[in-house]
C-alpha cells in the first residue's frame, strides 16, 4: 500500500482540476461525486496505508517517495517528494478523514448554492494543499502546501463574493497569514544558507550536529519559523484574521478550524522540533504565546453573541493549548490534542451549521433558545462536541488530551507552575463559554420560532455528525493517565518521530491531585454556566448594567482591541500614503526640479543684477531670458530631454577629462 502515498494529495488536486475546468458543464450530482469521491478515496488510501504502516513497520519507521526534482540550482535541489512517518501519518489521517466527513456534509448543506462546483473545487484544492503540507519531505515543498492552504482560505472565506465584507475578511486572512509566511521564507533562506539543505530529515540532523544549544542562528531560525506558525495557527499577535474568517460558508469554517490551515503551525513546530529544542528562548516564547493566547481568546469567546465567533475564539484558544504543549516539549501531547480537537471542533461547526440554517441564517445566540426538542440531532451532537471541548471527565476525548497537556506542562523540564495555572484557568473559561452557548441555544425559552418548513437534516448531514460525535467521545481512549489504565498507544506510536517530554516531577500523588483539579475545573465551569445562564440569568443582566463591566465585555468581545490597534498603526497609514502618492512623487520631481530652476533664473533677472550701463549685456540678458522662458514650456518631454543632455555632458567630462 505504501507506494500509493503520492495519491493522497494527488486525488483531491485532480478533483480540483476536473471541477475547475469542467465544473460549469457538470450536474450537481456529478460535482458532488467528484468532489467528495476524490477526498473519500484519498481518506481510504490513507487508512489502508496506516494499517500497512502499523503492520509492516517499514525500516526506520519512515517511508519516502520522490516524484521529481523540483528546482535544481548549484547545490540546492528540493524535490517534489513525500515523507511518511508516524507524525505525518497521524496528520494525514486526521486531515483526510475529517475533510471527507465535511465534504459529505457539504454535498447536502450547499445544495442550493449557485457556486456548487466552484465550492467543491476550492475545497478539494484546500485538502490537496494540506496533504502536501503534511507529507512534504522538504521545507520548500511544505511551503507550497502552506501557501496553497492560505490561498484556499482566501478563496473560501470570500466564497460569497458579492458581499464586499466577505472579500474584506478573505483578504485579511490571506494578508495576515502572509506576514508570517514571509518570515518563514526568510527562515528557509537562512536554513539553506547555513546548512545547505531544506530536506527536513537531513536538515534536522545537521541542525543538531552543527548548532550548539542556544546558538544565535538556531534562535533566529526558530523564531522565523515560529512567526510563520503563529500566522497560520492564529496565535498572538497574528490571531486577528480567524474570527473574521467566519464570513465563509459553515463547512469552510469547519475545514479551516478542524482539519486544515490552523493546525499547520502546530505541525510545523512538531516537525522541526529538533530546531526548537536548540533554541530555548524561542521555545519558551512558544509556551508563553500559547498560554496568553488561550486566555485572551477564552475571554473573548465569553463575550461573543455570534455562535460561530464563539467557536472561532475557541479554536484560537485550543490551538493555544497545543502551542503551550509544544513550548514545554510535550510534542506528542500537542499532536494528540490536535487530533481530538479536529474531531470535536468539526462536530461543533457542523452542528452549529444545522442550527443556523434551520433558523434562516440566524447567528445570534440570544435570539435562539429551546432548540433541544426541535433540533434533536443538532442538540445531541453539539452537546457531545461541547462536552469534549470542555473536557468532561472520562467520557470525552477532549478530557484525555487536555489533561495530558496540563500534566506535562506541570511535570516537564521546560514547564512551570505559572504556565500550568494559565492552562487550568483556560480550562475553566472553556467549559464556561461553551456551555453558555449550549444553555442559551438549546435550553430555556424559544426566542425565535423554528420555521415549519425546515426539513430534518438528511443522511448526508446526519452521518458525518454521528461519526464525528463518536470520535469526539471515543477518540481519547488510546492515551489514558496512569490511574485510568495508563494506556500509551498514541505516544508510543509517534515516539519515533516525536521524542517524549523530559519529565522532572514524576509524583503519582501530584498527578492525581492535578487531575482532580482539572476535573473540578471542567465540572465547576459547566455548573457555573448552568447557574448563570439558565438558572439565574438575571444576575448577568444586572452585572452588565454596571458601565465598567459592560465596557470590559465590549473590549473582550472586540478581541482585546487588536483590530483597532492594527487599523490605526498599519492599515490607515498605508492607505493614506498610497493615496497621497498615487501620482508617483518621483515622476513629479522630474518636472518640478526643472521648472523651479528656471523660475529662479527668472527672478535673478527681474531683480536686475546687471547694471543698466552695460546695455549690451542687458540686451544679451534679455535674449537669454526669452530663450530660457521658452524652454519652460511645461512639457515633461522637454525637461526630460534636458536632463538627458545634461547627464551626457557630465559623462563626457568624466570620461575625457
Amino acid at each position, binding site marked *: 500500500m505504501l507506494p500509493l502515498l503520492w495519491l493522497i494529495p494527488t486525488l483531491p488536486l485532480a478533483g480540483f482540476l476536473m471541477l475547475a475546468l469542467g465544473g460549469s458543464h457538470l450536474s450537481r450530482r456529478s460535482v458532488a461525486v467528484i468532489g467528495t469521491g476524490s477526498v473519500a478515496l484519498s481518506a481510504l488510501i490513507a487508512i489502508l496505508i496506516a494499517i500497512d504502516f502499523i503492520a509492516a513497520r517499514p525500516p526506520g519507521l519512515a517511508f519516502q517517495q520522490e516524484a521529481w526534482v523540483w528546482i*535544481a540550482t548549484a547545490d540546492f535541489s528540493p524535490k517534489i517528494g513525500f515523507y511518511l512517518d508516524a507524525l505525518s501519518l497521524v496528520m494525514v489521517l486526521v486531515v483526510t478523514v475529517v475533510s471527507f466527513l465535511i465534504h459529505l456534509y457539504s454535498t447536502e448543506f450547499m445544495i442550493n448554492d449557485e457556486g456548487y462546483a466552484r465550492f467543491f473545487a476550492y475545497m478539494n484544492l484546500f485538502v490537496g494543499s494540506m496533504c502536501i503540507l503534511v507529507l512534504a519531505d522538504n521545507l520548500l515543498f511544505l511551503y507550497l502546501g502552506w501557501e*496553497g492552504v492560505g490561498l484556499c482560505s482566501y478563496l473560501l472565506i470570500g466564497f460569497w463574493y458579492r458581499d464586499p465584507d466577505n472579500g474584506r475578511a478573505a483578504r485579511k486572512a490571506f494578508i495576515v497569514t502572509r506576514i508570517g509566511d514571509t518570515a518563514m521564507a526568510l527562515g528557509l533562506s537562512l536554513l539553506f*544558507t547555513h546548512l545547505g539543505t531544506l530536506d527536513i530529515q537531513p536538515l534536522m540532523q545537521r541542525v543538531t550536529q552543527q548548532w550548539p544549544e542556544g546558538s544565535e542562528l538556531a534562535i533566529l531560525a526558530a523564531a522565523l519559523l515560529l512567526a510563520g506558525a503563529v500566522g497560520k495557527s492564529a496565535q498572538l499577535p497574528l490571531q486577528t484574521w480567524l474570527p473574521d474568517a467566519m464570513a465563509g460558508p459553515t463547512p469552510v469554517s469547519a475545514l479551516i478550524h478542524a482539519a486544515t490551515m490552523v493546525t499547520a503551525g502546530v505541525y510545523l513546530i512538531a516537525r522541526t522540533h529538533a530546531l526548537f529544542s536548540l533554541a530555548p528562548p524561542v521555545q519558551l516564547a512558544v509556551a508563553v504565546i500559547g498560554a496568553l493566547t488561550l486566555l485572551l481568546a477564552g475571554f473573548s469567546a465569553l463575550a461573543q453573541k455570534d455562535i460561530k465567533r464563539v467557536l472561532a475564539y475557541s479554536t484560537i484558544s485550543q490551538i493555544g493549548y497545543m502551542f503551550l504543549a509544544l513550548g514545554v516539549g510535550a510534542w506528542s501531547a500537542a499532536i494528540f490534542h490536535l487530533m481530538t480537537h479536529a474531531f470535536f471542533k468539526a462536530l461543533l461547526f457542523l452542528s452549529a451549521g444545522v442550527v443556523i440554517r434551520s433558523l434562516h441564517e440566524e447567528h445570534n445566540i440570544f435570539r435562539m433558545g429551546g432548540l433541544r426538542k426541535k433540533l434533536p440531532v443538532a442538540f445531541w451532537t453539539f452537546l457531545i462536541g461541547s462536552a469534549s471541548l470542555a473536557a468532561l471527565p472520562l467520557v470525552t476525548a477532549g478530557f484525555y488530551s487536555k489533561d495530558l497537556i496540563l500534566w506535562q506542562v506541570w511535570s516537564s523540564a521546560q514547564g512551570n507552575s505559572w504556565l500550568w495555572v494559565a492552562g487550568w484557568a483556560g480550562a475553566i473559561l472553556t467549559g464556561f463559554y461553551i456551555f453558555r452557548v449550549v444553555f442559551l441555544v438549546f435550553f430555556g425559552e424559544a426566542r425565535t420560532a423554528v420555521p415549519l418548513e425546515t426539513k430534518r437534516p438528511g443522511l448526508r448531514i446526519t452521518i458525518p455528525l454521528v461519526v464525528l460525535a463518536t470520535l469526539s467521545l471515543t477518540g481519547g481512549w488510546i492515551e489514558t493517565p496512569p490511574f485510568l489504565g495508563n494506556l500509551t498507544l498514541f505516544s508510543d506510536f509517534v515516539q519515533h518521530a516525536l521524542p517524549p517530554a523530559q519529565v522532572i516531577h514524576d509524583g503519582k500523588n501530584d498527578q492525581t491531585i492535578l487531575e482532580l483539579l482539572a476535573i473540578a475545573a471542567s465540572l465547576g465551569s459547566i455548573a457555573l454556566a448552568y447557574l448563570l445562564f439558565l438558572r439565574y440569568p438575571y444576575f448577568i443582566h444586572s452585572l452588565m448594567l454596571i458601565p465598567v463591566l459592560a465596557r470590559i465585555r465590549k473590549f473582550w468581545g472586540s478581541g482585546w482591541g487588536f483590530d483597532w490597534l492594527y487599523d490605526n498603526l498599519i492599515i490607515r497609514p498605508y492607505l493614506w500614503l498610497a493615496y497621497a502618492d498615487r501620482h*508617483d512623487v518621483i515622476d513629479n520631481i522630474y518636472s518640478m526640479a526643472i521648472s523651479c530652476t528656471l523660475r529662479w533664473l527668472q527672478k535673478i533677472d527681474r531683480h536686475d543684477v546687471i547694471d543698466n550701463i552695460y546695455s549690451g549685456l542687458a540686451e544679451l540678458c534679455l535674449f537669454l531670458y526669452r530663450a530660457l522662458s521658452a524652454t519652460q514650456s511645461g512639457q515633461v518631454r522637454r525637461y526630460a530631454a534636458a536632463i538627458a543632455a545634461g547627464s551626457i555632458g557630465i559623462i563626457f567630462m568624466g*570620461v575625457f577629462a
Partner: protein
Amino acid sequence: MILTALIFILVAGGLLSWMADRWHPGAAKWLALATVGVELVLAIWLWLQSASAMALPAHVGWLGEIRAEWIPRFGVSFHLAMDGISLILVVLTAFLGMVSVACSWTEIQERAGFFYFNLLWTLAGAVGVFLALDLFLFFFFWELMLVPMYFMIAIWGHEKRLYASIKFFIFVEGSGLLMLVAILALVFVHYRSTGVLTFDYFELLNTAMSPSTELWIMLGFFIAFAVKTPIVPFHSWLPDAHTEAPTAGSVILAGVLLKTGAYGLLRFVVPLFPEAAGYFAPVAMALGAAGVLYGAFLAFAQTDFKRLVAYTSVSHLGFVVLGIFAWNPWSLGGAVMQMIAHGISTGALFVIAGILQERTHTRDMRRFEGLWSVMPRLAAMGLFFAIAALGLPGMGNFVGEFLILMGLYRASSVLASVAAVAFVASVVYALALVQKTFHGENTHGWQLHDLSGREMATLYSMAAITLWLGLYPQPVLDAAPNTANSPPAIVVSQHQANME
C-alpha cells in the same frame, strides 16, 4: 545561419504584412501570425536541440555563433551568438509575439498592415538585442526596437498616447545616447591600451582601465539599462507607456522590452566592468530593493487596471536587479526565472486588461466591480494571474522570487529582509485588483460576453506555462548558469570578493 534567420524572418514578415495589407485587407494579421509562428517553431526547435547540451553541469560555451565583417575600418562586425539565456529570451519573445498578434486580432482595425510591421520589427530588434555580441550591432538593434514601439504607442494608443509615447521616446533615447557614448568610450579606452579598434564583446571583455574610468563607463551602461529595466528612480516613463499602449504594445513592453534592460545588466554591465559592478553592487541592490517595494506600494494605489499592472512590473523587475547584482548561482537562476515568469504572467494580465477595455471601453476599476458573475471565465483567469503575480508557490514567479531571495540572503541578509516585505505588499495589490474588478456585486449592470475561443486559447496556454514554470522550472534554470559561467572565472571570484 539560424541566428540570422531568427532576425530576418521577423524583418521580412513585417515588410510583407505591410505590403499585403494594401493588396488585401485582413491579410496582414494572418501573415504576422504565420511569421511569429515560424519564429516560435524555430526557437523551440533550437531549444530542444540544445536542451541536452545545457543540462550538462560543465557546459560553458555558446550554442551557436556567426560572425561576418560589416565595417572593418572601425572594427565593427556582424557578430551574433547564442547561449542559454539568449535562447530562452528569444523563445519568450517569439511566444509573446504570438500572444500579441492574437490579442490584436480584433482590437487593431486601422492601418493594420503598418501596425503589424511595427510589431514585428520591434520583435526583430529585441531578438537582435538578445543575440548581438558586437556592441555597435547591439546598439543598432537597441534603436531598431524602440522606434517602431514609439509608433505603436503614438498611433494605436489610448487617450494620452502622445504624451506617453514622447515621454517613452525621450527617456529611452536619452539613455540610449548615454549608452552610445559609453560604448564609444569603452572602445577608445580599449584602442588606447591595445591599439586595436574593435566593438567585439569578447575582445572588450578584459579591457584594462583605471578604476574611475571603469566606474564612469559602467555608469553610462547602467543608466541606459536602468531606464529600460526599469530601476527606481528611472521608472517614471513606464506606467504612462504601458497604460497608453495598445494591448500588444503593453504585452511586448512588459514581456520583452523590459527584459532587454535586465539582459543588458546581465550580459554587459557585470561582465565588462566586473570591478566597478562589484563596487557599485550595493547601490544597485539598494535601488533594486527600493523598486521592489515602491512598485508594489504604488500598484496598490492605482485605480487604472493597466497602470496597476504596470507598477507591478517595477516591483518584479526590482527582484531581477537584486538577483543580478547578488551574483550567485541561486540569485542568477532566480533572476532568469523571474524574467521569463514575469513575461508570461504580466503579459497575461495585460491581455486581460485589453479584453476588458475592448468590451467596456474603460480601464477604470471603479467602474468594474462584480464581473465574476458576468464573465466567470475571464474572472477566473484574472484571479489566476493575480495569484501568479503575488508569487504563489507552484507558479513560475515564486521560483524566481524565492531563488532570488535565497541568493540575496547570502549577499546581504538585511536587503533580503527588506525585499521580502514585498511578499506581503504584493498580496495587498493583487487581491485589491481581484476585489475591485471581479468580486462584489455587478452594480454597474455590465452585460458582456465571456472569453472567445481565441482569447481562451491565449490565456489558457499562458496559464499552463505559468504552472509548468512553477512545478518543473528546470529547462529554464538549466539555461541560466551559462551566464554565470560566461565571464571568466577569475572575474566572478573577484566580483564576489568585492561583495564581501
